[in-house]
């Protein structure tokens, strides 16, 4: 019976990719969150909401706190102030077993895949199934092959992570992240370091898998064009705060200096090209006199 269901689901996968589940109920709410490492404030009173079924991008320059936001949502770090809610549960107040129960409904794609290097592609994808379910090995095999097929790497099941290209590793990590059909997918810089073909493939997979699984996705990135093509909504983070938000169309049309600089990729603007330094002339002349 179980195998029959899997076969039916496998047959439906291509058609599943064609519908979208969109709801306005928030799955993730970040309520006035402040986070600091030691004395250094990373996030300062952030508020944002991720609706169910949507793909939402969080954009901003390097070191602005985007990845920290993902870590807060995943409960890997706790905020100094405020609350992070996922599916109605306050993540920062959960005990470890409650947090682990919630994480079973989450998937995360790390920047460089974070595949287990001592396991094959197949075992990487099977990892969560073996850890969290009592499924027989034959069924795990079918499920793993389905997940790998969905990312186009069924034929690479026997390879080791060291034998994969960057784009392939990212796709295997994606297959591993969706192994237990999560309700929330988080992507940490999914486009970083990829060639244009892999970049397009990953972008389309994020969108299609989100819609097929009826999941909600958060994409942390600074890759503007690729992410604007696949997301429903965008938040811009700068200096630990949300400085702009909107749909991709609104973002493209925005005249706000920060957004304009970011979208156009201009070297100077509200985000300065030069790291703060004393006057250039003084530095040169002063250095010579000294």
């Amino acid at each position, binding site marked *: 019976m179980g195998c029959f269901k899997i076969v039916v689901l496998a047959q439906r996968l291509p058609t599943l990719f064609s519908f979208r589940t969109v709801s306005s109920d928030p799955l993730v709410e970040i309520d006035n969150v402040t986070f600091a490492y030691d004395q250094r404030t990373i996030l300062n009173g952030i508020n944002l909401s991720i609706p169910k079924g949507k793909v939402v991008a969080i954009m901003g320059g390097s070191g602005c706190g985007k990845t920290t936001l993902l870590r807060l949502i*995943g409960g*890997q770090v706790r905020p100094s102030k405020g609350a992070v809610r996922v599916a109605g549960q306050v993540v920062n107040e959960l005990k470890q077993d409650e947090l*682990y*129960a919630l*994480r*079973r409904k*989450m*998937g*995360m794609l*790390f*920047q*460089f895949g*974070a*595949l*287990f*290097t001592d396991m094959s592609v197949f075992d990487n994808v099977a*990892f*969560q199934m073996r*850890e*969290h379910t009592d499924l027989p090995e034959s069924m795990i095999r079918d499920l793993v092959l389905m997940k790998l097929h969905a990312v186009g790497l069924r034929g690479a099941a026997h390879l080791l992570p060291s034998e994969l290209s960057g784009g392939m590793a990212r796709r295997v990590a994606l297959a591993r992240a969706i192994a237990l059909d999560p309700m929330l997918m988080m992507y940490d810089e999914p486009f970083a370091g990829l060639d244009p073909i892999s970049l397009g493939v990953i972008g389309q997979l994020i969108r299609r898998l989100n819609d097929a699984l009826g999941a909600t996705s958060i994409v942390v990135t600074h890759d503007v064009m690729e992410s604007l093509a696949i997301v429903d909504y965008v938040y811009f983070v700068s200096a630990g705060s949300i400085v702009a938000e909107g749909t991709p169309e609104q973002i493209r049309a925005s005249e706000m200096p920060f957004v304009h600089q970011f979208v156009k990729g201009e070297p100077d603007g509200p985000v300065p090209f030069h790291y703060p330094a004393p006057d250039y002339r003084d530095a040169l002349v002063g250095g010579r006199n000294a």
Partner: protein
Amino acid sequence: MLDWGGRRISAIGAVLVNALMRAGFAARFLLAILLNSGTAFRRFGLTIREIYFTGVLSLIIILVSGLFVGMVLGLQGYDTLQRFGASEALGVLVSLSLVRELGPVVGGLLFASRAGSAITAEIGLMKATEQLSAMEMMAVNPIARVVGPRFWAGVISMPLLAAMFSAMGVLGGYVVGVLLIGVDSGSFWSQMQASVDFANDIMNGVIKSIVFGIAVSLIAVFEGYDADPTAEGVSGATTRTVVTSSLAILGLDFILTAFMFRGL
């Protein structure tokens, strides 16, 4: 002058406080390992796999070192004993030196440099490449899944390796003393059998090697887990594992020896 002295005292204080803090973290880490050891025993296959990597793959260096240490003991022991007309006691000297001291201590030092450093580097690299974070995000506790099996594999492997080191050492002593120099074979074995006490000598050696196994394994997994997730961080952690483990073995050996053999 006062300023210079003050800065020195302050620096020494900072080093001591830092060392104490790390010792505290290590103690809490050990507690966490013990509390999460269920996986290592429930799914013993994970621990067996680590025993292969830490124990079986250390066999070559342990056996070869044991053989040579035993051969050197045979040569040096014979040279000293024959001056007093006691060369027949060579077997006793070789075996007691090995089971009481050299087996656990040299075995432990070799284990720290071969297996301890490998454990630290592996866990440190898993941290640097976000594999541990990925595991946490998959609701799998890395202390239970990664650290626990490696820790227990070290604790189980160490006494076995020390025993094999001692056995090979005795064999090396036999080869040099009996086969090459010509000490009487019967005296070699019978005096050894008569003088080596199971409870006082062999078991004390086993206890030492278990304690060294716990110390080296704890230091190795702690340094790996606590390593900065960078190339320098992992390299520094690996070095610290070897240095700290070696010092811990030597220090613990003195303390254990003082307790075990004070009445003899």
